[in-house]
């Protein structure tokens, strides 16, 4: 799981072009949207497509998506259980 968490952090930094952020700057339990990393709906779009392309996970339900993208930990948990790639 720890490897997946680091991989996810690197993916997020690359996909969202967060030039000034290092993987260790992102706390595993901190909210990704609003406070915390401060992402918004446009970033959500890139995360949705990243989940599809990198892990083969299609997220169509908005309420499920909100839960998945709560933090790095929730993302990692969902990816580990549902990835097809």
């Amino acid at each position, binding site marked *: 799981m720890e490897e997946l968490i680091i991989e996810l952090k690197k993916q997020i930094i690359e996909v969202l072009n967060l030039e000034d952020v290092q993987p260790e700057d992102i706390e595993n339990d901190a909210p990704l949207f609003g406070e915390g990393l401060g992402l918004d709906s446009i970033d*959500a*779009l*890139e995360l949705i497509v990243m989940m599809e392309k990198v892990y083969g996970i299609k997220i169509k339900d*908005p309420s499920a998506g909100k839960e998945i993208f709560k933090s790095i930990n929730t993302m990692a948990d969902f990816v580990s259980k549902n990835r097809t790639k």
Partner: protein
Amino acid sequence: MEAQHSEWKGTTGGTPWMQKSLVYALAWLPLPFVYCGMAIFVVPFYMLFNHQGYLSQYHFFRQRLSRSPLRAFFDVYLNHCRFGQIILDRFAFYGGRRFKLIVEGNERFMAMTHEPHGFMQLGAHVGNFELAGYMLTQDRKPINALVFSGETGTVMENRTRVFQHQNLRLILTGNGMDHIFELNRALADGEIVSMHGDRVFGSQKTVVARVLDAPAKLPLGPYLLAATREVPVFCTFVMKETTNTYHIFVRLLEINAEETTTVRQRAAALAQAFADNLSEIVCRYPHQWLNYYEFWQHE
């Protein structure tokens, strides 16, 4: 620019009673008669009291189109008249009136509805983009139109009523992320997504493109959506020509694939391609530029 823009509420003016009355009256009143009344009694009032809107249009004619001060003042008046006519046409349409259409470049759009992949259609706050949704219809692919969730009840009721017989679904923008999931799903399922590509709303992330040869902030969302999902993008402009005629321009946005290797580069190239088409249309129909705020960045 963003501070002024954030004050715009994105709703059609007037009380619900006024809007409902307009829908009924415009179904039978002669439009030239209503246009004249508006030009004499309503437009001067708006020019006097909507100072921010007046100034932004004046700057548009002076700085972007190099008009003299007197000519720019007269152009702002004509612009307000056109804006009023376009709003009245929309209510007339809700009341059952139909307009003659001249459609240019729709062949590629229609051909693409036979393809399995989804694609996007972007409009701008010029002319009467909403009429494209009502009048450019096809039954092969559902169209998902992103609309502002704060629009007035009368407008939303009429939109829903007119759209219910068409292959068109309204997706409401909000402060959350729900609409992003909906738009992504629609494109992944091979459907069409329709939205505006010129005005920043919701997310404040922008992409700078040159519109009429000056830098302007366009919303990043539409272009990033197209770039991440790798779908074609059309721009559609519905421009008023005479009382009963609209000219619809449909164009596929072309970008150089070799020069755009990353998603962000593709998004920026799409935004510039859209801006180029928009600039050409605005030069041709300057009185149908309907962004009543300071659109351009100061260079």
